[in-house]
């Protein structure tokens, strides 16, 4: 099927850049190069989110993934910069038949899955028109009234332009239906912060917090007495 128009043009551009950058992420032997290619994959996928009409998720993707998680990755690569290069490289891959076999198995699985998925989806999944008014019959009468009134106004009078209606809908349903998962996610983030701080402490910091096993403390003080001083 050949599509024309700007939407398919942008889909092809971003899909190709995402796949190529993902390929280079997997193939790069330097971890920093891998991280930079992963960043370009994430930005391309964020652009695809915009094409799908999910502007909020696209913004969160750029802010959280690219601005937060990937910067964290780059900082850790900087901290442990010894051994960022994979040892060996391309030619050593042939010495590991198990890994290559498993990869080929997954590729074949993908191929079979894609064939059946495309066959199924062409029959079952019809694209719904996603104009703003398409879900009016699903809304209650009150919401429909509000929507109608807003559509009658100029864009600036509603306070929401067309591009932010997705953010409004996601926010509304996040606080209406997803309150408990939202709170659980915040507790999870707190636990992750505490856990990563605890895990990444040095022995000296653990000793300063008086949080060492007795034998470790004896070993540490012995080292200091013998080696350093």
């Amino acid at each position, binding site marked *: 099927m050949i599509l024309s128009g700007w939407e398919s043009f942008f889909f092809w551009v971003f899909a190709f850049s995402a796949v190529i950058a993902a390929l280079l992420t*997997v193939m790069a032997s330097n971890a920093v190069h891998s991280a930079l290619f992963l960043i370009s994959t994430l930005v391309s996928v964020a652009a695809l989110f915009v094409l799908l009409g999910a502007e909020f998720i696209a913004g969160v*993707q750029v802010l959280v993934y690219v601005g937060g998680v990937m910067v964290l990755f780059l900082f850790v690569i900087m901290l442990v910069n010894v051994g960022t290069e994979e040892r060996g490289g391309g030619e050593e891959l042939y010495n590991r038949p198990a890994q290559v076999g498993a990869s080929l198995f997954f590729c074949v699985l993908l191929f079979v899955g894609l064939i059946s998925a495309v066959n199924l989806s062409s029959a079952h999944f019809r694209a719904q028109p996603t104009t703003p008014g398409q879900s009016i019959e699903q809304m209650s009468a009150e919401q429909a009234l509000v929507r109608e009134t807003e559509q009658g106004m100029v864009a600036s009078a509603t306070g929401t332009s067309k591009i932010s209606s997705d953010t409004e809908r996601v926010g509304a349903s996040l606080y209406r239906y997803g309150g408990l998962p939202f709170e659980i996610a915040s507790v999870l983030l707190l636990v992750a912060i505490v856990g990563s701080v605890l895990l990444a402490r040095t022995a000296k910091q653990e000793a300063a917090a008086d949080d060492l096993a007795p034998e470790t403390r004896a070993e540490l003080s012995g080292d200091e007495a013998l080696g350093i001083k």
Partner: protein
Amino acid sequence: MIPLSWYLTLSAVLFTLGVVGVITKRNAISMFMCIELMLNAVNLTFVSFSSYFGDVTGQLFVFIVMTVAAAEAAVGLGIIIAIFRNRETLDVDDASILKL
């Protein structure tokens, strides 16, 4: 309108690239980045279904998945730093102390 199957195909390709990366890489940080790639492919699936069915619940799932991915990255990188302090290497083949 782009067919849904194209987005699903792209997402499957990205996911498989992530799986292949996790299998073939031996640097722990590179493996983590491939896991992020897999999570992102799943997010693309969620968003495309959410967009094609006109339901924002899929985007809520993506929000939670992103939170979990951020938490996983923070804890995982803490573990990587702890392993690096003890062993001076990031090769996962060398971190085999639990092996029988």
